[in-house]
């Protein structure tokens, strides 16, 4: 039973994620989370503003149900599967983040400097949350997929567009993590 309450290594997570992709394919669907962002726009009536969103969003209901499940999975993990485990991120990353003003570098799972409720009174925090979310939404849809659609599904299917997208993910991520972080933090 102890295994349920501890963190799992990469060689457990990798196969499970591949299995999730395969299950969805065998059920006639495709593994890709970011398309839900577009489905949400269509569902909320964006079709009135642009024909681009005049799609049959009901055919994508299964995917909305899937992410609702993911949300429930997060809730279940928090309520029933957590003990006082500690995360072991690398000491280099931890030290570098401490220098940038992150107090509990390596905690679970998000830094309070950005995500704690009382940080929200800082306009810079609100800006980081909004611009970050915006980049994720705009970028994934412009690229035609995110980590699940391109990095996992697309690469598994040997798709060159997905490889190009993943290279893009890393260019953006490396620029942020190496050059922009020191300019943005501490907030």
């Amino acid at each position, binding site marked *: 039973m102890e295994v349920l309450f501890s*963190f799992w290594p*990469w*060689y*457990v997570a*990798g196969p499970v994620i*591949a299995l999730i*992709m395969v299950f969805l394919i*065998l*059920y006639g669907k495709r593994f890709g*989370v970011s398309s*839900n*962002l577009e489905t949400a*726009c269509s569902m909320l009536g964006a079709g009135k503003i642009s024909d681009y*969103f005049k799609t049959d969003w009901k055919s994508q209901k299964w995917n909305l*149900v899937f992410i609702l499940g*993911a*949300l*429930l*999975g*997060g*809730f279940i*993990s*928090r309520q029933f599967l957590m003990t006082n485990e500690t*995360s072991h991120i690398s000491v*280099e*990353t*931890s030290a570098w*983040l401490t220098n940038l003003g992150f107090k509990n570098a390596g905690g*679970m799972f*998000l830094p309070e400097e950005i*995500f704690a409720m009382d940080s*929200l009174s800082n306009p810079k925090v609100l800006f980081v*949350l909004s*611009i*970050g*979310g*915006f*980049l*994720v*939404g*705009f970028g*994934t*849809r*412009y*690229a*035609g997929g995110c980590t*699940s659609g391109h990095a*996992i*599904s697309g690469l*598994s*299917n040997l798709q*060159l567009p997905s490889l190009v997208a993943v290279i*893009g*993910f890393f*260019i*953006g*991520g490396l*620029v*942020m993590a190496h050059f922009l*972080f020191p300019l943005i933090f501490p907030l």
Partner: protein
Amino acid sequence: MKLIKFLFIGIGFGIILVKAEIVSWYRIIEMFRFESFHMYGVIGLAVVLGVIALQIIKRKNLKDYEGNPIVIEPKPKQYTRNLIGGIIFGLGWALIGACPGPLFVLAGFGYVSILIVIVAAVLGAFLKGILVK
């Protein structure tokens, strides 16, 4: 209910993302700083096994559960979009420490601020649809 199976697959997805710390902001920044193998192991192994699984599905001409042949549509070849969109997403991924899947898992885990990120992400997808179709 035909959709209930997707709820359960989603729950499994959410649990694995928490238990393997893929929802951790720290794990993502650590990945982009090349200071841990963890995330590379997760994605790398998923892709290797995914390639094998899809090859088996194709070569054995497996059918889906409704008996239809499984044809996985190729990704549209829009290399400029793939690259530029990828870079934009990468910037956000490293800053927020979460890609779209983990955003929803973190909301369920109880992080209220993540809702701001999700709303902004939907707005980003909306603006993409308006501006560039």
